């Protein structure tokens, strides 16, 4: 049963091959049995899951028939879930039980999805390896000595290990696409504003976007359908109709113009990954796509700009964790300053503290223009590059990551080396564009992902290309040994 995709589960539930409760119990058992190897869950919500599954079965018995009714999922542990610990992977929120549901959580619950638990993540979504979690590193099911990527590493590892078919993630600089690539999943970061951020604990507000992680593009379409939409509670959410993503999957790729940015294939890219990306291009050509070389000349500035803007916003977003109203509070503070200093010093891990300091510095008087304002200008240039490129192509294709999943601990001493892993993904966040990573092969038994980018609100086009690719390839169907 654990091999089933969301689409297959929907069919199985519809034709009563199994009930949501049976499925849920089977997957919960599998999680309890296998997750100790992976550490992909922070909380497993057995009781909630079984009650939701029973409710889904009752709704189905009453005649309802939604694609997500009874579908087992998990949420990255930064989506507030009422009555459930929502930790953000941090000691700071280890004791925090959310008093309300994030819009994403509420929408999916309403659609009948069953929440099996909350998945592990880099602390406050800051990281590319899922090593900064207060709850320990997550292991890559393809090789337990390697990282699964981050920050949505728990969701990635759990879905790749067939603990469940799909999970939510968030992507601020690649945090859905990069772990999807490193675990052989399909993961989609929607257009900024497509999915509500209400209840999604902020890392960098102008870049954060929730999205689906699953094994197939078809499943991403189903899950995105349940997540997307305008939300009056999020001022940056966009009031744009949500298309039916499943019906967009089957379009022909004949004549589809795919742009390959030359900057994505330069130095720093593992040549074995480059080969697999070129192989995927050949497959798409066979499906009728037309390949063009393009240029995104300002891409080289993306990492510096991102590592100013994201920490700047984070330094402010994380100010509310002060030990006063919720979350971690130090023992016996001697005065207010001591309360602040020790609660934050003890409650936040080192990567979070590093980014808060970097961001505070970038916003400080005398540095603001040189860092923050300049980064915003670069952001505009990067967006302009994409706008110009999309005049001539329908999608942009390249590698998702420059390297394979690395060994746990290998980049701990050098944060900048880890930051460089985001080089291909962060431009979509800076520009607010939708991006998708899909499985494209293996090197030394470790997965490789291909990234597709499209114009604003063209999530359907990305899912269409990935789905068509998955009709002629089988990378996405392969399971890691032991799972």
């Amino acid at each position, binding site marked *: 049963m654990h091999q089933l995709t969301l689409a297959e589960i929907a069919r199985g539930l519809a034709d009563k091959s199994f009930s949501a409760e049976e499925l849920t119990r089977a997957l919960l058992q599998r999680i309890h049995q296998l997750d100790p190897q992976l550490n992909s869950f922070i909380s497993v919500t057995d009781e909630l899951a079984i009650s939701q599954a029973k409710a889904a079965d009752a709704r189905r018995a009453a005649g309802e028939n939604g694609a997500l009714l009874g579908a087992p999922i998990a949420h990255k542990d930064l989506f507030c879930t009422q009555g459930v610990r929502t930790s953000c992977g941090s000691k700071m929120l280890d004791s925090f039980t959310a008093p309300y549901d994030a819009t994403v959580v509420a929408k999916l619950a309403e659609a009948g999805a069953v929440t099996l638990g909350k998945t592990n993540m880099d602390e406050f979504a800051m990281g590319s390896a899922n090593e900064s979690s207060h709850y320990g590193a997550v292991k890559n099911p393809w090789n337990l000595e390697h990282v699964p990527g981050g920050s949505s590493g728990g969701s990635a590892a759990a879905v790749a290990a067939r603990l469940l078919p799909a999970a939510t993630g968030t992507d601020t600089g690649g945090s859905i696409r990069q772990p999807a690539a490193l675990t052989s999943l399909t993961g989609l970061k929607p257009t900024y504003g497509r999915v509500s951020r209400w209840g999604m604990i902020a890392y960098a507000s102008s870049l954060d976007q929730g999205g689906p992680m699953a094994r197939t593009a078809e499943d991403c379409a189903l899950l995105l359908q349940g997540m997307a939409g305008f939300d009056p509670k999020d*001022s940056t959410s966009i009031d744009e109709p949500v298309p039916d993503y499943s019906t967009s999957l089957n379009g022909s790729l004949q004549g589809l113009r795919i742009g390959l940015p030359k900057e994505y294939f330069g130095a720093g890219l593992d040549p074995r990954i480059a080969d697999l990306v070129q192989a995927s291009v050949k497959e798409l050509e066979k499906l009728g796509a037309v390949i063009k070389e393009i240029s995104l000349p300002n891409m080289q500035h993306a990492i510096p700009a991102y590592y100013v803007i994201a920490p700047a916003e984070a330094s402010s977003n994380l100010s*509310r964790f*002060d030990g006063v109203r919720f979350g971690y509070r130090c023992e016996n503070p001697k005065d207010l300053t001591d309360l602040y200093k020790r609660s934050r010093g003890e409650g936040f891990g080192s990567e979070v503290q590093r980014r808060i300091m970097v961001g505070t510095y970038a916003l400080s008087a005398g540095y603001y223009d040189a860092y923050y304002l300049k980064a915003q200008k670069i952001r505009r240039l990067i967006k302009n590059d994409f706008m110009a490129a999309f005049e001539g192509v329908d999608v942009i294709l390249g590698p998702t990551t420059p390297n394979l999943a690395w060994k746990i601990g290998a980049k701990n001493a050098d944060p900048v080396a880890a930051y460089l892993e985001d080089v291909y993904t962060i431009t979509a966040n800076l520009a607010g564009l939708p991006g998708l990573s899909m499985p494209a092969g293996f090197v030394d038994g470790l997965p490789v992902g291909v990234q597709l980018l499209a114009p604003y609100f063209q999530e359907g086009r990305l899912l269409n290309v990935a789905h068509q690719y998955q009709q002629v390839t089988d990378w996405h169907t392969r399971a890691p040994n032991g799972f």
Partner: protein
Amino acid sequence: MQWEVVIGLEIHTQLATQSKIFSGSATTFGSEPNTQASLIDLGMPGVLPVLNQEAVRMACMFGLAIDAEIGQHNVFARKNYFYPDLPKGYQISQMELPIVGKGHLDIALEDGTVKRIGITRAHLEEDAGKSLHEDFAGSSGIDLNRAGTPLLEIVSEPEMRSAKEAVAYVKAIHALVRYLGICDGNMAEGSLRCDCNVSIRPKGQAEFGTRCEIKNVNSFRFIERAINSEVQRQIELIEDGGKVIQETRLYDPNKDETRSMRSKEEANDYRYFPDPDLLPVVIESAYLDDLRATLPELPPQKVERFQSQYGLSAYDANVLASSREQAEYFEKVAAIGGDAKLAANWVMVELGSLLNKLGVEIDQAPVTAEQLGGMLLRIRDNTISGKIAKTVFEAMANGEGDADQIIKDKDLIVESDSGVIEKILDEVLAANAEQLEQYRAADEAKRGKMFGFFVGQAMRASKGKADPQQVNQLLKSKLEG
């Protein structure tokens, strides 16, 4: 050394919206602590602000009323600092692109002149909560009911030159926001609070001296006293060879002095940056046109109309228009009484001093506009004299009824029967035969003085009721005779 005082003010006005600026919580004053604090006001993880359009409308109303440029693309920014009553660790405010730009406001000075004060800007922001330091046995309590209440911070140019001017400006702002219905103006409840930037410079010097900011002064009287004591402090400091250092100070009304709160070096670096959770506010011209049409008549127009329609002086017009309630009271009295100048005089002088004495505002005046207007009618038709009117007014203030009732009860009608008056005069002259002799013997200059004596005697004999004009005429002819 002659010193010139330079004052600029930052006035925080709480906008009278039903709900908070970024959440749906109510803004009622005085509720039980933390009963008006939602997830958003608490700064819970994951919550987001949504701008209250009503606060935007009110800010635009203010901008239109001071003839300001409206920031048709204005931006919210985060002001970052840590304090327990600031739940998010930042205050959502506006920095580079405020909603209201440069404007101006005219104020009436006591010497009868009118001065135009420049307004630099006005921006929207959220209020913080309150820290409660009493009753918590060594700890502090936090009440977040006020957190998120919309504020319009109005920043003036440093164009006031005395504490009196500063108070006149604050009163004019106070009147304006109440005219507009955008703030209840209740200073005791903190609805309107003032930060005063004060510096001094030698008279004639162009550049400003170093300024100090007196934080959070919340009454007209304290504003005047705080500024005066700060000016005195700065003068004494400089004349003793010291230097003013830029700092934030607090006014202690009990000791009537300001004291240092924090110096510029200790000041926070607020690290302002545009709030990524909120989109820029775009204000269409059509929206402003519609809004302009809803503006009530404002003090400047009212002042102009009071002068042209009623022939009042600029000073009187300014005083009467200084609050919506006073202007409405005056116009009602004038309409009933039929004499605007007389009405203006009574409202400003007699009613003004009565209110002062009682320490109440005009909307709680013990004499209604209808009562005062009715009394003016009796003055105009000579039923009572101006002097008797004061007695009637006092009686009305004591709740003894309307003017007609009081005049009747106290028998205060002017005696205008010439026969009766002549009889009184005859009695007066008979009783003062000696003075009559002296008068008839005196020269013109002396006679003038003595004439007053007889008038006084006659008025006293009539208990003030005799028509003074007739007394004058008849007395003159009798004395001559």
